[in-house]
């Protein structure tokens, strides 16, 4: 009923050529076809400008602060937790740096405190990250949470990132984490 009376063999030829051309170009582009990738922030490049909080297509952002416990100094006077110039080192709101109170401080033993990020509250502004980099060990850093991220083809934050810190990594790898590197030469 819809089959075309084969009026134009020329059309068949063009069709075959088009299919071959498009298919060939795409095969060439895809070979070797990469696997799925995800967006991540290179913590070495991040400058904590705060745009992760406002530029993600999600609200709140899929970028959250993550805490590398093995780097943390467990300081009492934590640059990522306390306001600069805080009068006391306690959990009083007047001393807290985080605008949404997403960092929880718990006592471990004298003089160490553990800091945990409440991801439901965290907006990914990176304020604590800057404080930690300024005064501490850099154990707080921003990262794209894969369970929240909607994996845009072009990440809206990556586009806005002034430090060019966003990049795609293989989905199996998932994260670019800061870990304590034991031994081995420094990478150049």
């Amino acid at each position, binding site marked *: 009923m819809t089959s075309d009376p084969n009026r134009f063999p020329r059309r068949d030829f063009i069709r075959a050529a088009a299919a071959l051309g498009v298919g060939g170009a795409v095969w060439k582009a895809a070979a070797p076809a990469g696997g799925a990738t995800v967006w991540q922030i290179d913590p070495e490049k991040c400058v904590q400008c705060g745009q992760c909080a406002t530029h993600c297509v999600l609200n709140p952002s899929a970028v959250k602060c993550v805490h590398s416990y093995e780097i943390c*100094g467990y300081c009492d006077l934590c640059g990522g937790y306390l306001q*600069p110039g805080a009068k006391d080192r306690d959990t009083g709101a007047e001393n807290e740096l985080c605008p949404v109170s997403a960092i929880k401080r718990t006592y471990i033993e004298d003089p160490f405190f553990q800091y945990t990020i409440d991801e439901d509250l965290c907006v990914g502004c990176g304020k604590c990250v800057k404080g930690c980099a300024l005064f501490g060990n850099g154990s707080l850093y921003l990262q794209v949470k894969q369970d929240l991220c909607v994996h845009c083809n072009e990440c809206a934050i990556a586009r806005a990132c002034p430090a060019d810190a966003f990049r795609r990594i293989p989905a199996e790898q998932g994260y670019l984490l800061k870990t304590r590197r034991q031994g081995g030469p420094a990478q150049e």
Partner: protein
Amino acid sequence: MSGEGTGRIPPWMWALAAVATVGGVALLASRDRRPEPPQSFRYEMGDLERVDPASVIFSETAPIEPEILALHAVAATPDGRIYAAGEGAVAVCDLDGALLGRYAVMGTPTCMAVAPDGEILLGMTDRIAVIEAGGAPKADWTGLGDQAHVTAIVADAEHVYVADAGNRVVLCLDRQGNPMARIGEEDAAKDIPGLIVPSPYFDVALDDGGALWAVNPGRHGLESYRPNGELITAWYRPSMEIDGFCGCCNPCHVAFRPDGTLVTAEKGIARVKLYSVERKLLGVVAGPEAFRGGPTEAFSGDLHVPFGDLAVDARGRVLVIDVNRNAIRVFEEKEPA
């Protein structure tokens, strides 16, 4: 809403509507701006970084620039020599910065001491390289342990004191590298509070009388010990104000001047200050302004610490390694007006 109603509208109006739609979409898209992060999301140091110009009692003179990459350690001797170390090399200069010698070393020293007899001790994370006064390699003290992270060394005629931030201890070694005592470990019986070292910034210094002072960065002050590990005295000054130490681990570098006054360097709020023998703030050697504007200030992943090391030379000038500019910055006390 009826069909006849829409039918009456002339077609050119629909064309206009289509053009308006596409144009509107294009306009909206081209003016698309995400809001900038609000003030509450941005970290502000604000007034804390401000330094009263009147309190700055030092002025900067020409920096010394030994041609060494990754300059990270500086030391000075009473006989007027300045030693600087960085990637693969140690340079010896006179007080005017003229090069007297240059020795090749393996690795990048991050701290250095010059013993009274001219022997150079270089800290390389978990080992110490010893170089003879003439530049010949003499010994390599390994065996500080896997955790070791040497951040400072001082030496007198008999002892070498090594600040090991990884093990949170000051090791007292003899001049051959044999361990003599462990200083600063928590000991309630001896009233030693224990060193809190949360980050690899942990300095030791000898004062004008030759006594050992170790920074306790977690407590924002210094502790003085005898070579056998006995605590003599401690001085802490935690404060966000200019006369104290802020952040989680300051001061990061200290040095004593020949007259017994104490020079301290802080990270976070980058400043160098001078304290009297009685530990009263005498003034500021250099404020954050002096270390700003280098090529790297807000550079990512970086810990925002512009100082590599601190030393006081024979003239009492303060020498600061500026890692951003890869130079030894020299600060001289202003003549009292």
